[in-house]
């Protein structure tokens, strides 16, 4: 296992370097100039060029990349072009709000999708299954910004039950207030995920129920309930590990649209703001964190697989 893990980590290094290379060049090839953010009419050409040099943008792109990767290897993510604060500090300030929001949303998705998936599979083609399926189709197809605005309209504007913006009320420091602010963003984030996972679990359960070992178990007189919960469900939920592994990057990269609409001070909002301001070091840091989490997520899910399913050996 240890050897396998080490091997996978070593294999991931060229992948990450490749991702960083592609991302670095694509970001720099997008139209726009970070120096533009600092220009004022009074500035002379020399001042503008000095600003460019201060940001390290006066060198050829490949040299910039070389310096960037050198610093990254030393654990230095660089400084934000916008406020000159260390990128690591900028990210650490946004990390908790995002982890909290995304983590809760993922948890809601997992719990709800298992419950709904089971209900749907057990009552296949009946009213409950049809109802859940319709709810899922809406969840899969609804645009998140639109869904967010609908929720805000109903719960904030009409019913006045929930705040529409931010992570807390100014001057209020309570868990209840935090929860009230988090309800709508969590719903918006978890709904599409829940819908996809529910459909997946339903399909897996239905397929699994047709397997020959189910018939064998039945013929041996094992109760329907025991077969379902001890065998079918366990086997059906195994691939969920992969799906969850794939979801890991979103825990750190946040949700660009949802965080922006709800003014949630997380990584997603930071990402949007960085893109609009051409803040290359921050964009690169978020991109790389997501990539590392994706690679890690895959690795963790493979390891978990081998732990819970003895048929798979690494």
């Amino acid at each position: 296992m240890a050897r396998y893990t080490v091997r996978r980590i070593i294999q991931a290094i060229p992948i990450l370097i490749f991702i960083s290379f592609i991302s670095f060049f694509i970001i720099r090839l997008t139209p726009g100039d970070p120096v533009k953010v600092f220009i004022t009419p009074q500035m002379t050409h020399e001042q503008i060029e000095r600003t460019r040099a201060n940001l390290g943008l006066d060198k050829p792109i490949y040299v910039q990349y070389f310096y960037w990767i050198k610093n990254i290897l030393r654990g230095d993510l660089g400084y934000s072009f916008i406020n000159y604060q260390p990128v690591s500090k900028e990210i650490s300030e946004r990390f908790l709000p995002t982890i909290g929001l995304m983590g809760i949303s993922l948890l809601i998705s997992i719990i709800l999708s298992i419950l709904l998936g089971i209900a749907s599979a057990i009552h296949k083609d009946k009213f409950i299954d049809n109802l859940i399926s319709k709810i899922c189709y809406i969840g899969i197809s609804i645009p998140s910004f639109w869904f967010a605005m609908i929720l805000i309209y109903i719960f904030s504007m009409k019913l006045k039950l929930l705040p529409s913006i931010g992570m807390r009320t100014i001057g209020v420091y309570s868990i209840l207030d935090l929860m009230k602010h988090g309800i709508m963003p969590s719903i918006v984030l978890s709904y599409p995920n829940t819908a996809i996972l529910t459909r997946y679990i339903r399909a897996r359960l239905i397929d699994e129920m047709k397997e020959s070992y189910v018939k064998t178990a039945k013929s041996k007189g094992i109760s329907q309930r025991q077969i379902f919960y001890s065998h079918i469900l366990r086997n059906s939920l195994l691939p969920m590990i992969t799906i969850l592994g794939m979801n890991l990057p979103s825990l750190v990269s946040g949700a660009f649209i949802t965080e922006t609409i709800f003014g949630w001070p997380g990584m997603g909002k930071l990402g949007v703001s960085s893109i609009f301001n051409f803040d290359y070091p921050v964009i690169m840091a978020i991109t790389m964190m997501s990539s590392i989490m994706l690679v890690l997520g895959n690795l963790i899910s493979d390891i978990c697989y081998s732990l819970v399913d003895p048929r798979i050996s690494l």
Partner: protein
Amino acid sequence: MNIKKGLVLLFALVLVLSVGCSNKENVSEKTKDAVKKTEEEKSEKISEGGRIILSVGDDPKVLHPFYATDRSTMTINNGLFDPLFVKDGEDIRYYLAENVSISDDNLIYTIKLKDNLKWHDGENLTADDLVFTFQKIVDEKQNANSYQNFIIGGEPVKVEKVDNLTVKLVLNKVSVPFLSTISGLSPIPKHIFEGEENFEKSEKNQKPIGSGPFKIKEWKKGESVVLERFDDYHGGKPHLDEVVFRIISDPNSEKVAFENGEISTRYIDFETYEKYEKEGNFNVFGFDEGMLNYMAFKLNSEALKDKKVRQAIAYGIDKEELINGGYNSTKYAEPAYTVLASDTLYYTEDVEHYDYNAEKAKKLLKEAGVENIKLTLGYINGSKEQQNQALVIQQRLKEIGIEIELLPLERGAFYQKLLDPSSTDFDLVFNGYVMGQEPDSYKLIFTKEGPYNFAQYKNVELDKKWEEAAIEVNEEKRKTMYEEIQKEIMDDMIQYPICYPKALVSVDKKVGGVEEAKTVPIFMFEDLSKLYLTE
């Protein structure tokens, strides 16, 4: 105001031009009604304390007066740092300065500070701070935005301390716009920044020490910046306990938050202005932002090199129709006839107006010997107003035989092409600017070396006149020079002025003191200490 002036193009670059023009019963008059309402509200009791929440689109960047370039940073800085004074046309409103005097030879500016000034940490604000500020602005290493404004005649402006409250600035050459340069300048605390190598990157900007009516309490990145009352403020204790700047980047979310009572003010468009005004749930205000919306001609376009073709295009456009096309109404801005904003010194309408005249346009095209011209009009794709106006122009110019292809571009791509002198992707372009009240700042757009000479206009004689006007101390002569400049630019028709849009804001009914706080461009309120909540 210097910073305001500094905002200028940046503002034009960062914002899409918006809001349209004309009709005499305009928003400023309606604002007077709103002000009357505010006066009525004054009879209501002021509730001392409390907080108002303003929204800004993004986190402030560097909370230091030397480096503010965007609206969020400038707005928050305005609460934290007081300027020396604000020059508003002929009027001067003093803040930190007691008075400013200019020597007879226009080479020495003497600034006397008020004697009760304190920094937010309780230290006295004195001439030493002011001397330090000026010294650091001209220190090339610090890369202050206004550095160039303090280099006059190739030399940095010299600063001398006269006494504990008085500072003398010595110029080696007359510069009439210099008073505007120091207007709006905010001193920085010497005891905080002395010895600091790079002000722009200083950690001290995270918790700035200022001199304004509010001091920083908390800055939660991505969420809010909370300012609390500065009890030792020289202008008297501010009414509010706190002013909060909530970071809301999505306009729809901002609208909901405002209507839900989660924020106290916001900028609005004309449709929302009319809605709020009709419903009466919120107070609405409109004021001149000093902004000009225009269509520029790119002179590297072969077809536009001939002045007659440019003039023909100008005559071929119906300005009122164009404004109506963008905004459905002509209530929210005045039509523009010259390249200066209407609040600029020496603004004149005594120029060729280019009133719609299709026959004249056709005749000019004939004289130019051109036919079947195809031109491309570039603009930012997110602007509904520009899209509509582009369609109006396309339709009108078709009537005089000019085919217009529309090129809406993503913001980043648009500005890249606009700033690139070699770009030939479009021949005509919609843009806008806020250049401040000093006409000298406009030379950045219309002189050969001007960094924002998008049109690539070259007029050696006029370039000379811009330079001469900047040092002309005789008021009448200077006025004549700037009027001649305007006439010549309009005659050359390198830029078709469209309108002066109004900035429109809505304010929660519970917020009072709007008139005293004075609605101004960029910051929304010039003096936050005057705002209060009503009981």
